[in-house]
């Protein structure tokens, strides 16, 4: 008698692959923040606190890295921002004991918005994101602290961000974590429950949600992005893992179309040694 043991061919368990050791992740990211801030002669940081999970997580990490008293939390509401965003951001400020500031951006952005009555939501959203950047960088000068970015891997890959707006920062501690992993780490670090529970939103208009706008859930697209990006799966191989082929193509096209947001502007090469081509030093060269 032959005792056969034939294992069924299984799909890759992406949820398991996406699971991170939160202690190790925290250690690396806290060390990164400490290092990046201090090596250029700073000891403080500025974070735009939206009330959402990404900036809450970054605030937790930064407080651990630099001491809460060195992390300035800035709330930057627009007139249509939900009240919940402000109270959720306040919960983070209170829990960590952060110095905080609230700067209403409506009087800064409204004159521009009013100049163009036909302006769509995307334009308005971009103006708000860039205005928030201006306030944060101004606070950076006053507070003598670096602006810490709060972008995550999912939104940066999908281009769900504003160039020179929320993407502008001196360092990006969580940009290599998918939204699913941001959630996992945030739970582990004790981010307030109301923030963990609510639907992610750019909060530009009432009822807006990221997942509603994107047309799929973060959990779903993170599994796919993990295979395409981290796993180096082709579109065909990803589809063979059970994803709808049209969905795979749509997501991958979106990643490609938004690559300009992830790179520095192209420089026309003329000389023998050119910035952006062959004048190559680390950013840390300055530190």
């Amino acid at each position: 008698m032959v005792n056969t043991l034939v294992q069924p061919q299984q799909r890759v368990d992406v949820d398991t692959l996406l699971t991170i050791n939160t202690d190790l992740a925290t250690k690396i990211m806290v060390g990164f923040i400490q290092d990046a801030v201090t090596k250029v002669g700073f000891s403080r940081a500025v974070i735009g606190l939206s009330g959402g999970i990404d900036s809450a997580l970054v605030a937790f990490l930064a407080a651990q890295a630099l001491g809460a008293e060195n992390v300035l939390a800035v709330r930057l509401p627009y007139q249509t921002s939900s009240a919940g965003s402000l109270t959720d951001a306040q919960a983070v400020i209170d829990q960590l004991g952060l110095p905080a500031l609230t700067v209403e951006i409506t009087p800064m952005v409204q004159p521009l918005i009013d100049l163009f009555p036909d302006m769509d939501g995307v334009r308005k959203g971009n103006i708000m994101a860039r205005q928030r950047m201006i306030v944060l960088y101004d606070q950076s000068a006053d507070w003598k602290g670096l602006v810490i970015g709060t972008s995550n891997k999912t939104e940066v890959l999908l281009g769900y961000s504003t160039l020179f707006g929320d993407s502008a920062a001196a360092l990006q501690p969580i940009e290599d974590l998918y939204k699913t992993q941001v959630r996992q780490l945030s739970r582990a670090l004790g981010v307030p429950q109301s923030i963990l529970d609510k639907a992610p939103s750019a909060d530009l208009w009432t009822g807006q949600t990221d997942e509603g706008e994107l047309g799929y859930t973060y959990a779903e697209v993170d599994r796919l992005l993990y295979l395409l990006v981290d796993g180096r799966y082709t579109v065909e191989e990803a589809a063979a893992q059970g994803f709808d082929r049209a969905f795979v193509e749509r997501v991958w096209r979106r990643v490609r179309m938004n690559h300009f947001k992830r790179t520095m502007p192209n420089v026309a090469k003329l000389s023998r040694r050119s910035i952006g081509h062959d004048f190559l030093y680390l950013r840390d060269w300055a530190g």
Partner: protein
Amino acid sequence: MYLTVGLAQLYPKIGDVAANLKTHLAQIEAAKAHGVQLLMFPELSLTGYNLQDLVYEVAMQPTADNPIFRQLLEASGDYGMDLMVGFVDTDRRARYFIGAAYLSDGKVLHVHHKVYLPTYTMFDEGRYFAWGDAVRAFDTRFGRFGMLICEDFWHASPPYLLWIDRADLFLFHSASPGRGLDASDRLGSARWVQLVNQAYGSLFTSYILHCNRVGYEDGLNFWGGSTIIDPDGEIVCAAPMHEPALCIQTIDLNQTRRTRTRLPLLRDERTALMARELTRIIEEAPDRTLGAR
């Protein structure tokens, strides 16, 4: 015979050789207090890792004429402590190498040039460096040693060559960027390196000393976790992950003989067969580039 070794798991400052020399001398001082006879520093310990265009500024020659090496050589003589340091070597013909130098009693006993220059994913070493063209063991006052640098021991052949060249103790150093975060308490790169080092210890029935750096460069983290593996493939000591440390351990070199008596893999190794078959394989290889390297 016992040997007290130190693994200086430090954080070199990118491009700042003077500052790094100070750090080295401080580690030597601290190690001396514990009777360290052999102190290892990580890959490119005097310069930092991802140098890019700084390569040409920090390059030096490992001789007493060089003010940096002069101080290290003096320290090795004054303290009676052998040193393995990492630096950028240059041959005065504008060729640059990732170098590991072994210093003993005021002299440079051996220099190894990194053979395997990773030039893929986040790595770009082949853009800046020439590859070393030799793998040689060398004699020290503690026995015959071999040195390799990071990617050199991601390939199986350099450790094998050192073994056949009569190295009985392997000095590996690296500047290994951490990657592969998952549910494990260690990064994928850390698990992989420890796995292969334990394999080398087991297969070559030899001590494997591995010194890795820590710190950050432009978002890359270096995971540390330096280890000593004994001739049975077991971990003798492991430095902490992601934190600077001077890890000091006295090892019993006689363990090599005891293990090899139990497990005579070296005695039974068929080097002539190996050489004959390798020659045949390269000559017959349809992919001729394999034979040319």
